[in-house]
């Protein structure tokens, strides 16, 4: 399975991680699902991180923002296909916290490592279900020109 994202949007989510460093950034990936589950990102929606108690190593998107993003996406004939966040001075690998707090089965969870304020690696992981036995699977990120 693959996540396809235009170059400009790929850089947008990485730059979000640099802008919020040393705190985690987070946001929503809006796009389209292909017939076999592949995803194509059409818009990146930056969100606020509500975990003000632990901004450097936790993130949480206000559900009210998710409601708004989902509603606007559906009006445009699109869907939420995934989410992104950053790991400041930490590898771009999912953590046990990432897995336990992930509930959007079938969606992509993109993680960017940000070292000393600079985005380094960006990896994507697809959440597979069911909820009781969920797991992340490495997902190829295909960056395209448009």
């Amino acid at each position, binding site marked *: 399975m693959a996540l396809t994202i235009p170059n400009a949007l790929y850089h947008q989510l990485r730059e979000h991680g640099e802008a919020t460093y040393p705190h985690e950034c*987070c946001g929503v990936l809006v796009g389209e699902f292909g017939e076999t589950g592949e995803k194509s990102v059409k818009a990146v929606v930056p969100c606020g991180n509500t975990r003000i108690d*632990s901004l450097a190593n936790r993130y949480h*998107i206000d559900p009210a923002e998710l409601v708004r993003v*989902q509603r606007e996406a*559906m009006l445009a004939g699109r869907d939420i296909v995934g989410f992104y*966040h950053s790991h400041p001075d930490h590898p771009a690998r999912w953590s046990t916290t990432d897995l336990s707090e992930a509930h959007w089965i*079938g969606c992509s969870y993109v993680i960017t490592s940000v070292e000393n304020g600079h985005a380094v690696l960006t990896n994507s992981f697809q959440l597979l279900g069911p909820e009781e036995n969920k797991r992340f699977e490495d997902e190829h990120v295909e960056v395209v020109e448009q």
Partner: protein
Amino acid sequence: MPIKVLIPTPLRPYAGKQSTIEVTAQTVGEALNDLVAQHPDLRKHLFSEDGKLRSFVNVYLNDEDIRYLAKDDTPAKETDTITIVPSVAGGQ
């Protein structure tokens, strides 16, 4: 005229692959009951065994979290939209 319920992508396989489902109800609780009556496979994804909404499932009536309204007893009318969104969180 029925109430619209917006279904998030991870729950659509249990809702006939539909993104929007129409229900008939006077309250949000009745709306959710009608929803799972139409699509029984949704029940375990929305509710825990004790019948309460699962902790990571958020239900909004228009722009308001029903937990801060009257929960299941929140009145719903035909022009309202109910949105279901699982939570999004994590960290290193």
